[in-house]
């Protein structure tokens, strides 16, 4: 720490200050966490002490007079558990904060790597003190840490690219994971049979079990990674979708091989049952999720009087879907995704805007905390866990994982490309293969193994693979993406043009498919939409919104977003973003800032009255939602800004304008404004023109 502080004086003063702050924070929190975990392990030994201490008090009470009333007492036991949990979470978040303060670090190293590193440090410190560091408990992981991340991913899953690429995603998820599992398991077994490696004790089923655990791409790691590299939507959805859907395969394979490993032999009937089990697990999970999703949508229909608890319904129904699926050993992840996807369109039509924002931010917050905690615990568990290092096994695992992933992706893409309209290029295949990261799910599954003999060795190998993928692949994927010039994500929001034309093209393609007699993608999507509109929406969406076409709701959302942006920007001086898209030839010609301010002041003063008028006249108020009154007012402010912009545009490079304004009477101004207001927004201003500007 001292050297760090010393060398920082070479850098800029700000950086060194930040480092010192971070350093002190680190020390403080380490010490607190260390003492906290000391308490975890020393918990039992502390208990008798207070009891013993109280007895002398008691005895002294009876013999002496009344003891003094304790003004200040210390009772840590009472709050120990929540205190320690909060401390850990606080540590995690402070770390996250710290990374972003340090200027260059967050660009070079992805956050997940830093968090694991911090976990290693914390674990190391705890071990150095002599305590036993806490391990990532599987129950804690599967029941509390994983669901928020998956729900966040599922609820905000971009449906269109997902369904368009569903075939590809499924092939990668199912066939790819199976290939990985069997390839790795088989090759490991083959190597274990070789004399001299000291691995003779590992039988085929254990190898296959290990292969099943290590083969699945991890959604947490993928999310953490891909969020930072901003890759294009197609690749993102391919890798991410695969990581979500391969949960079913992993669950089935894991339980299958674990059962068989105990029994020792496999029959054909068992293999067949395994296949059936796969379908049951995945389809059952989806069904459970869909049922809860519909329940949640139905409930949200009636929440118009109790807006405050709306977000809770979303969270609870989803969590119940996850837990219910876990009860039956179905795929909890798929259930959660299905629930979120099912619920979302109807819930969003029913709930208020504030609830929508609440849901969005709570989900982001929880998933962020979970992710941070997972990575830190991963680091701590690495230091803590019993390790059994076997060079051959570990190195072979790492190599095999990489090789099998590459082979799998390339081979499957060759087959898939025959069926895809837009083929996957070699570069894209490489990124898909390289982005196959392993993470905490593999570790937790490995931790659940009951066979002690191999468990340590397996865990070591799993941790090494996780480290390799997260550190090496995670750190290098960003420069690789830049090097290969892979298309990046286009940042801008969806415009109304895109929405209209996309719907137009949908109808067009459906029509053409009907002409060809070809029942393809568009045909079924159209049928589903009709079914949705005719039956489902009536049941699940409250009031008039149930008959609202998608285009209209999209437009309303867009307007509301703009209106909110205007409010948040604080002043009417900032123009809405869509207007910024205009090319420079239309931008206001150069007038000085001072003159601009004067013009604005004048306009504001003259147009003040339009607000009252417009509110009663305008029929743009579609949703008479009493909770959202201020939105319409903001909409008018936006329109006023629009008008200001147009006035400024037409008041061209007239350098004497302001002088004229002040010297002459307002008549000229009025005439000019009146003339410039003959524009498409004319309907709105036709009314106000005569009355309001004239003062």
């Amino acid at each position, binding site marked *: 720490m001292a050297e760090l502080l010393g060398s920082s004086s070479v850098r800029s003063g700000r950086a060194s200050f930040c480092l010192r702050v971070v350093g002190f924070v680190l020390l403080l929190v380490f010490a607190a966490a260390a003492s906290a975990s000391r308490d975890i392990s020393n918990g039992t030994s502390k208990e008798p002490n207070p009891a013993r201490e109280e007895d002398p008090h008691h005895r002294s009470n009876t013999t002496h007079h009344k003891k003094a009333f304790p003004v200040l007492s210390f009772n840590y036991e009472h709050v120990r558990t929540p205190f320690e949990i909060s401390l850990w979470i606080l540590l995690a978040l402070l770390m996250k904060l710290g990374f972003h303060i340090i200027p260059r670090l967050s660009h070079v190293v992805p956050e997940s790597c830093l968090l694991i590193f911090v976990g290693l440090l914390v674990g190391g410190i705890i071990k150095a003190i002599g305590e036993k560091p806490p391990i990532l408990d599987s129950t804690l992981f599967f029941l509390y840490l994983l669901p928020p991340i998956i729900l966040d991913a599922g609820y905000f899953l971009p449906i269109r690219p997902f369904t368009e690429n569903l075939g590809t995603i499924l092939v990668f998820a199912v066939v790819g994971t199976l290939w990985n599992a069997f390839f790795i398991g088989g090759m490991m077994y083959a190597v274990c049979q070789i004399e001299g490696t000291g691995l003779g004790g590992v039988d085929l089923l254990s190898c296959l079990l290990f292969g099943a655990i290590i083969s699945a791409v991890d959604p947490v790691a993928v999310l953490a990674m891909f969020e930072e590299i901003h890759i294009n939507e197609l690749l993102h959805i391919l890798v991410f979708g695969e990581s979500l859907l391969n949960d079913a395969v992993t669950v089935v394979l894991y339980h299958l091989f674990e059962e068989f490993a105990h029994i020792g032999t496999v029959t054909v009937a068992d293999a067949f049952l395994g296949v059936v089990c796969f379908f049951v697990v995945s389809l059952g999970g989806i069904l459970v999720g869909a049922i809860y999703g519909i329940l949640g949508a139905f409930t949200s229909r009636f929440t118009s009087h109790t807006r405050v608890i709306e977000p809770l319904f979303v969270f609870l129904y989803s969590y119940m879907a996850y837990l219910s699926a876990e009860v039956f050993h179905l795929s909890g992840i798929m259930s959660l995704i299905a629930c979120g996807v099912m619920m979302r369109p109807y819930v969003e039509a029913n709930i208020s805007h504030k609830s929508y924002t609440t849901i969005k931010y709570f989900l982001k917050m929880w998933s962020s905390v979970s992710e941070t905690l997972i990575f830190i615990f991963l680091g701590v568990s690495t230091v803590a866990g019993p390790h059994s290092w076997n060079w051959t096994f570990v190195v072979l695992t790492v190599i095999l994982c990489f090789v099998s992933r590459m082979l799998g992706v390339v081979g499957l893409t060759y087959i898939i490309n025959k069926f895809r309209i837009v083929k996957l290029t070699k570069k894209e295949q490489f990124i898909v293969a390289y982005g196959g990261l392993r993470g905490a799910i593999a570790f937790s599954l490995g931790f659940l193994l009951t066979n002690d003999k191999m468990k340590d060795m397996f865990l070591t190998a799993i941790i090494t693979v996780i480290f390799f993928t997260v550190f090496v692949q995670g750190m290098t994927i960003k420069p690789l993406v830049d090097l290969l010039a892979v298309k990046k994500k286009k940042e801008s929001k969806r415009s109304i043009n*895109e929405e209209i034309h996309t719907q137009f093209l949908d109808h067009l393609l459906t*029509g053409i498919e009907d002409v060809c007699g070809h029942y393809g993608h568009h045909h079924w999507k159209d049928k589903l939409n009709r079914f949705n509109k005719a039956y489902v929406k009536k049941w699940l969406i409250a009031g008039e919104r149930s008959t609202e076409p998608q285009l209209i709701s999209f437009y309303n959302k867009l307007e509301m977003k703009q209106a909110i942006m205007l409010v948040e920007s604080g002043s009417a001086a900032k123009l809405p973003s869509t207007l910024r898209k205009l090319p420079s030839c239309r931008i206001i010609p150069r007038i000085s800032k001072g003159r601009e301010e004067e013009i604005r002041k004048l306009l504001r003063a003259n147009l003040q009255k339009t607000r009252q008028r417009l509110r009663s006249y305008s029929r743009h108020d579609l949703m008479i939602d009493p909770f959202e009154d201020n939105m319409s007012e903001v909409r008018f402010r936006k329109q006023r800004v629009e008008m200001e912009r147009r006035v400024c545009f037409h008041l061209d490079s007239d350098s004497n304008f302001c002088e004229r304004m002040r010297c002459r009477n307002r008549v000229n101004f009025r005439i000019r404004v009146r003339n410039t207001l003959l524009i498409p927004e004319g309907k709105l201003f036709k009314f106000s023109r005569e009355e309001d500007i004239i003062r």
Partner: protein
Amino acid sequence: MGSRASTLLREEEIEEIKKETGFSHSQITRLYSRFTSLDKGENGTLSREDFQRIPELAINPLGDRIINAFFPEGEDQVNFRGFMRTLAHFRPIEDNEKNKDPTASEPLNSRTNKLLFAFRLYDLDRDDKISRDELLQVLRMMVGVNISDEQLGSIADRTIQEADQNGDNSISFNEFIKVLEKVDVEQKMSIRFLH
């Protein structure tokens, strides 16, 4: 083409269609059998009524416009060549086509031609601009009857405002292309014709 109402398609015709549209042999035969099944009058051409007999097309909001797109300017019948020519716009773009002879004319299923096809469906009066009224008509067809004119009007206004760059209050073809540059038109406007 002869006065017979034959159900046979001659090899030379298949070759010509293949060259013009890029469809494969099997695809052409398959689409030919579809053509003949639609052609109730058995005279080798399709009329508007033949198309209107397709049930799903009747409930499609853009049904009429799609049907019109098949018929060349001012005519009431379309033969198999014309049928294929229209459908060729929806063939997926293949990679090897990108390396073809640059002096050859652009294939029917290039991105620009696909977008031109869609543009022509908006622009009924063929003045190379989508005016506010044309846009309103399309919106009205897609959105149904429950929405007021004013609402649709404001949507149309906003749409034009977003896309319009030269200030003529309508969307020209280039502006149309620009607005859709983020949309994956190659995938959106392609049908995977079965082999």
